[in-house]
């Protein structure tokens, strides 16, 4: 009876050990598993498939993140027409009528307020993309840029601020 229990525990341990690094089970662990499995009751062996590799599941959406105390001034650029339908760095599809933006460092799906310092208009955009242009602070979607009146006057300074 005691032996059985010990063997069961051993199996459990070896199984968890296996699943934790399923790609390369250590050489030492292998014979131990085999030995005990032979001794054990068939019921326990049935459990073995749990070691099988799980199907790859895409996480639904990255978690929404909130950043505090970020504020910067600079100039903005915007996406071009051909970018409509492009895949952004966050995985979302760029839509020219979306309120999204690209930024060098702010986390994806965080929201920031962008204000045109010349006319005082402001919009809230979601960061969905990375910006690799050092001369610009933020890259806005067409619709966001339009609301800030940055289509006619693209070189106005903007203020980017978290809530």
């Amino acid at each position: 009876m005691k032996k059985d229990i010990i063997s069961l525990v051993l199996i459990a341990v070896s199984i968890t050990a296996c699943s934790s690094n399923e790609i390369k089970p250590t050489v030492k662990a292998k014979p131990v598993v085999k030995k005990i499995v032979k001794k054990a009751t068939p019921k326990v062996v049935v459990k073995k498939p749990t070691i099988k590799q799980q199907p790859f599941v895409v996480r639904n959406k990255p978690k929404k993140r909130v950043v505090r105390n970020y504020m910067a001034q600079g100039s903005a650029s915007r996406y071009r027409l051909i970018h409509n339908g492009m895949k952004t760095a966050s995985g979302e599809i760029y839509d020219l009528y979306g309120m999204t933006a690209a930024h060098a460092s702010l986390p994806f799906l965080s929201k920031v307020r962008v204000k045109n310092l010349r006319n005082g208009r402001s919009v809230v955009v979601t960061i969905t993309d990375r910006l690799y242009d050092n001369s610009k602070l933020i890259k806005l979607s067409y619709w966001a840029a339009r609301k800030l009146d940055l289509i006619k006057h693209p070189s106005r300074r903007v203020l980017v601020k978290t809530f």
Partner: protein
Amino acid sequence: MSKINKYIFLGLLVFSINANADKFVSIGDFADQMVVKHGFEKSQIISWISQAKRKQNIIRLMTPPRRTPGKKRRGRPWYKYQGKFITRNHIDNGVRYWRRNRHILKRAEKKYGVPAEIIIAIIGVETRYGRNKGGFRIIDALKTLSFDYLRRADFFRQELEHFFLLAREEGSNPLRLKGSYAGAFGIGQFMPSSYRNYAVDFNGDGRRDIWNNHADAIGSVANYFKEYGWQKGEPVMKATQVRSSNAAETLLGLKFEPRYTLAQLKRMGARYNGNESDDTKVMFVDLRTRMGTAYWIGFKNYYVITRYNHSKHYAMAVYQLSQEIARIYEERYN
């Protein structure tokens, strides 16, 4: 010379109107049908119809703009249509409408699976949230369009039939009900047949009053969408790229229905980057923005919106207005 040309042109015009018009049915024949099919009294039907007036301005409003032969008409671009509906006013009033009717909208969302912002956007585009329900007598509109204007007479005669049935079922006077110049009425602008099939009583008073009661109107719009197959939680449309302008041309030759799989569209040259599975049924949409033509993939839900009004611009306007409203509402109240 110019006079002769004018006459020839007029002749051609009359000919072309006749060529694609429906057959004329006299009021007497229509009344006979109503007697046989639904057991109305003939004198009653005749008296109702004869009390209705033929309105010339309805005919003018329903006549499509003349086409110059041989020239391909491109129509009004999307951004001009957009400017009429995606306005500060529409969005702000939509947010207020949502706030005012939030409990009803939540209930409708739960029961029918249609998001509140879509219902609001429909009502906003149709009647500016119930402010502009139309000042024509429905019977005038339907009489004019079924007996005096033959372009879509068959359709409007059916609607007239439904309208008389509706009046009998609801116990209202058909001469007093008001609607738009095309015979659509109420906060959600239902046609008589849609009213009979899809309108619901959503406030539990036993009447389907979509003229004055916002709860009934909201429930009816939601039910209409559900019946046409709105898929809860599924996307409406997503932007896509195309491989070349040639590819865009072939894609635009497709039917305006979600009858193609994503894989088919990709084979034809759409470069779509979403994670939807390849056997999703979709359609291809192009819109002329201020910057140039851009392309979208429309899903089943996009098509369901076009069931309310068969136009790609209409569906896009509803979708975009709903997104704008939802954005502001969330900012303000959540």
